[in-house]
């Protein structure tokens, strides 16, 4: 059984211009011990999907308008009360944000912050909590951890701060860690270190990880399976190798073809013309149709196409074509 099953999730933000359906019928499963990647252009609903799982909207005018978020052994989190959610947060499912500074209290020493996470959920003495915090800093490979316990967040580099946030996420041994762009603000050599750390922690603790990123290289590096999102919907999902090496949806293919690493210097890059649609009144039918090279009249009518199997098992996409031509041809 899957650790997490998201079924037809719908999340809305209300604003002066109307209701933005940031997540509009998203479904995917996360298996125990796997790293699941979510990719897509900015604004496609990656963060909104993740925030829905723990109802962490930071005061934004958001609500879960439909669907289920089934956590194995816990039930449907989509409908949980704040009180029940507070038992899930941190203990069963932990969150890592893009900017570690927002997750840390600037006026508290980091050892104390980690210890408080532990003491919030477990009856342990201050000394025991501090010792556990020290162990966690070792676990995330912070050098000279004894010295760092008494540091304030601003005294640490971006990479060290993200390690501290990961330590806090690991503190209660959650079954699932949601990491929203955890390395986007970091330099590439430090990103490499943090990705290795996440994978290594998964290997030794067996926790599942949802990793959100806009960088396909990052997904390729550490994820097992992945979903590609476009305008609030999943348009392709499968194993990372299926999706990245034999992509089938025209959007996934176009996204890969736009990368400079895939093109020789003698050729121009292949951008995707136009920009993603607004989510207040998205176009009918397939939302990629206005930018899709292969769009036909029947693509742009009715409901968005549903995910369906494409050839290999567990490789699904949401394009109505039976045979998708090569984007570069």
């Amino acid at each position: 059984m899957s650790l997490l099953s998201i079924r037809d999730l719908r999340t809305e933000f209300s604003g002066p211009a109307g209701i933005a359906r940031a997540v509009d019928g998203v479904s995917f499963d996360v298996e125990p011990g796997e790293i699941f990647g979510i990719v897509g252009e900015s604004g496609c609903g990656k963060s909104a999907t993740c925030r829905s799982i723990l109802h962490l909207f930071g005061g934004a005018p958001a609500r879960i308008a439909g669907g289920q978020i089934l956590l194995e052994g816990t039930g449907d989190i989509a409908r949980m009360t704040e009180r029940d959610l507070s038992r899930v947060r941190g203990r069963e499912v932990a969150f890592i944000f893009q900017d570690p500074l927002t997750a840390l209290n600037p006026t508290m020493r980091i050892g104390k912050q980690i210890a408080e996470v532990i003491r919030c959920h477990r009856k342990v003495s201050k000394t025991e909590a501090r010792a556990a915090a020290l162990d966690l800093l070792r676990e995330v490979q912070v050098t000279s951890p004894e010295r760092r316990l008494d540091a304030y967040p601003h005294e640490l580099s971006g990479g060290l701060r993200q390690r501290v946030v990961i330590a806090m996420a690991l503190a209660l041994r959650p079954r699932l860690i949601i990491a929203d762009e955890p390395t986007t603000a970091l330099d590439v050599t430090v990103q490499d270190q943090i990705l290795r750390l996440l994978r290594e922690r998964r290997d030794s603790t067996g926790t599942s990880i949802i990793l959100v990123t806009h960088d396909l290289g990052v997904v390729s590096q550490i994820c097992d399976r992945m979903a590609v999102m476009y305008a609030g919907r999943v348009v392709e999902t499968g194993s990372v190798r299926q999706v990245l090496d034999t992509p089938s949806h025209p959007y996934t293919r176009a996204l890969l073809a736009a990368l400079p690493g895939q093109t020789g210097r003698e050729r121009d890059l292949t951008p995707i013309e136009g920009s993603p649609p607004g989510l207040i009144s998205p176009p009918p039918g397939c939302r990629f149709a206005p930018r899709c090279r292969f769009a036909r009249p029947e693509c742009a009518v009715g409901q968005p196409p549903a995910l369906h199997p494409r050839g290999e098992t567990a490789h699904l996409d949401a394009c109505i074509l039976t045979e998708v031509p090569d984007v570069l041809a």
Partner: protein
Amino acid sequence: MSLLEFQGVERRFPVRRGLLDALLRREHVWLHAVRGVDLAVRPGEILGIVGESGCGKSTLARIGIGLQPADAGAVIFDGAPLNGPDPKGRLQMVFQDPYSSLNPRMTIGAQLEEVVAHYRPGLTRAERQGRVARMLDEVGLVQETAQKFPHALSGGQRQRVSIARALCPDPQVLIADEPVSALDASVQAQIINLLRRLNREKGLTIVFISHDMNVVRYLCDRVAVMYLGEVVELNDSAALFAEPRHPYTRALIGAVPDVHHPHREGLPVRGEIPDPFAVLQGCRFAPRCPLAETACHRPQSLDALASGGAVRCWKAVSGTLS
């Protein structure tokens, strides 16, 4: 022959390091942001400058267009020392965040016209508008864009507008500081194609600053790698990526995740970039370098290699890197 040349450029900033310094009433310390940079930009080339955050790329760029003075050394543009921004606008810059560099309360057309009027006071209104129309066309924006305000444009369109604005005075050199870093890959490709076309068709010389190794490899003719204020390697782009010499360049290239070839083995580089206050006598990369040894603790110079390019590492120069 070079069009724009950095000669021994230095830049230091006085900074207080925080609470402790304030409590102890300590004087500021010096943050050495750019150290002895020698770099010649050739006419018609796209020169890439890469490196991780804080290594001095933006500071070097600002000095290069005369927005900021160098503390020591000189910038030579078109044969003469540069003292402040070029009055004819022949050196232009494009920034990472197009939103903050555009005026939110003016239409795109009015902003561009203002720039044209500044550099060509003699033109009539109709001539100015004609020039703005050509610039919009040049960067692939429809003419209606002139009537719009910045907030009504997408990130990619805004970046085209800032490129159009930089093109107004007909520059010889465009310094682009992370111009695509805030854009999604699908839109980034549009801007990169535009820069390539300006370079090929108009002969525009471009200094392209980036931390994205894949973009730099694709776009640039030559590449300078910076680390903690210094250029540590300089070479033709193809050679630099095929055979990186400096251990830092190797680490940087090795750390870029590849879409189709995951899990490259090899050791990650140790630690992080130390803060730029660190007083380091010898090679500035030594604390993180897997190949560091005692002899690395003496200052390193940027030395030309017989096979082309230049590198700031005695081991790479003597061919004793593994």
